[in-house]
């Protein structure tokens, strides 16, 4: 299934990390696309943008933010959205994503992806804010399911019900992080297959995979280390439902570019129709 906005399948990509800048610029590796953390290139006019512009000349970019606070109850930050829009236009980002979460209250930013109570009130609130953001950005955004470590007693629906209804009612995209599905399922004791069964696949525009740390009592979304096979298998099931772009996130103890990219290409072992796409997607413009 192709998503309802016809956003392109860019193949396999990597989260752009500073330690790989030089390798990427020197060797132009055949990565399908890169995802950037939007805020790392906002509120700066210097060196980070210098690198970003050079990489944007060679690769499709997608922007992934962490500070929209779409579930927050402070007013939407119009200055932030304006900067986001400017960056999107500068690097010609294929789409913009953030997380189904809130990041702070009363003007204070915790810089964390804080969990929502899944209630009718929350849903109506987030639907309204997504519509406002999409109007402002003049296009759909995608929201990612974050890893969560708590659940609210006030919740009246599951996360996947909430996410599915949000995507339909606000007409927004889903960035389905299958590692987060796995981590949250471990922390809360649900079956990740139930999660996948509740996803409206025509809204899924992108997948995330990543490593995590299992502390025994709880799993933590650390983005460290290789992706475990259970998570790859979840990706395989999900990707069978939605032919959307795949991205590996690796954020701590980051290995060489070659090792990181080799890990991303493991997607081919678990995704039936991927073939050599990951290495051929250098110029992934969709032609019809």
């Amino acid at each position: 299934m192709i998503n309802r906005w016809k956003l392109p399948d860019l193949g396999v990509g990597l989260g752009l990390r500073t330690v790989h800048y030089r390798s990427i610029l020197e060797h132009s590796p055949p990565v399908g696309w890169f995802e950037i953390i939007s805020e790392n290139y906002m509120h700066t006019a210097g060196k980070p943008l210098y690198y970003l512009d050079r990489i944007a000349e060679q690769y499709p970019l997608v922007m992934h933010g962490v500070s929209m606070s779409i579930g927050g109850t402070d007013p939407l930050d119009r200055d932030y959205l304006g900067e986001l829009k400017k960056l999107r236009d500068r690097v010609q980002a294929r789409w913009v994503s953030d997380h189904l979460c809130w990041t702070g209250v009363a003007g204070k930013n915790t810089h964390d992806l804080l969990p929502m109570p899944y209630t009718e009130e929350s849903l109506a609130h987030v639907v309204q804010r997504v519509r406002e953001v999409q109007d402002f950005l003049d296009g759909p955004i995608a929201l990612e399911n974050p890893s969560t470590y708590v659940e609210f007693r006030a919740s009246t629906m599951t996360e996947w019900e909430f996410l599915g209804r949000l995507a339909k009612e606000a007409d927004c995209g889903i960035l389905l992080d299958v590692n987060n599905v796995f981590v949250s399922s471990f922390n809360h004791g649900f079956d990740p297959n139930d999660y996948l069964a509740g996803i409206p696949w025509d809204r899924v525009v992108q997948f995330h995979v990543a490593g995590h740390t299992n502390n025994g009592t709880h799993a933590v979304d650390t983005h460290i280390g290789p992706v475990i096979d259970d998570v790859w298998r979840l990706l395989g099931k999900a990707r069978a439902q939605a032919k959307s772009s795949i991205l590996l996130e690796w954020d701590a103890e980051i290995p060489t570019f070659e090792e990181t990219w080799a890990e991303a290409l493991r997607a081919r072992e678990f995704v039936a129709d991927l073939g050599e796409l990951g290495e051929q997607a250098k110029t992934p413009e969709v032609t019809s």
Partner: protein
Amino acid sequence: MSEARLDRKPAPDVGGAQEELLHERASATPMRERAERAHVDVDTSAIAGAETLPAVSAPLRSLQEWFAAVVTFPASLDDGSAMAEWPVERVLTRGPQLSARERLGVYHYAYRARLVECLIDDYPGLNYAIGEDAFDALAGAYIVRHPSRHPSLNGYGQHLASFVRDEYVTEAFSTSFAHDLARLEWALVEVLHAAAAPTLSLEALQAVPPTQWAGARLPKADTLRLLRFTHPVNAFFQAFRHDKSPTIPSPEPSVTAVYRHGWTLWRMDLTPAMARVLEALFAGATLGEALGKIETDESDEASVEEASRNVMAWFREWVSGGFFGRIDVGG
């Protein structure tokens, strides 16, 4: 004057921790790899009691205010919970293996850890100089005084130097040295993020007829900071960068230029004579006035001699380093 300061060779500030200035500090990666179970030192029967009480059903705003108050509470999560409107167990569920309080502890830990890591990224020299424990305590106090109010963490540490000088009381380290070092390290962050703009070239300088030099003005480039210190912090920082395990130096005045040129950051110590000329120029003086400063301000014959001997070399070096935004002649 220390030997290190006499060696005025500009030092490129590359590699090592410098590249970490471009760290994905806004990353979605939670700082939870060291997360442990939140310490629970409460009456467990009270927790069990709270779990049987009705769930809190409150507006989203109230739930978020409660959540933020507990996870950003500077002391323990239990203390934060005790101060909050509802016990944790009335708001959150128990998980398969952890209590509601232990689960919330993951967020409580992550909040502080993430901001401390951001400060360590920006102040690696200070973290080394005063030691990890003292830095952690300083960072903790800073986080309470200056919670982030911005979508980006790029500017989060901007108040650390003034905070350590004006508000932080400690006997663990010299706050005047820490203030100096924090200013140096923050200047590197500022220069890294400064907008790229044209700087004066040697060709443009040489195109100015010598008869007009005395009246020329040379405004500062945006990618340069000129800093006066009470300690030789650049020499200390340089030794730190080269893994030479420096010890905190005794007070001694120093002046350092921090600048970006060709996308590389540089640090360079300046002699007193050089500093006086540059400070005068950046304050708007003409070149003639700035050079005259050396002769009128000081009865320092060495400085006068140094200036007369080296002034052309100085300007070549400064212009090559992109110190000036442009040259304004006449008017």
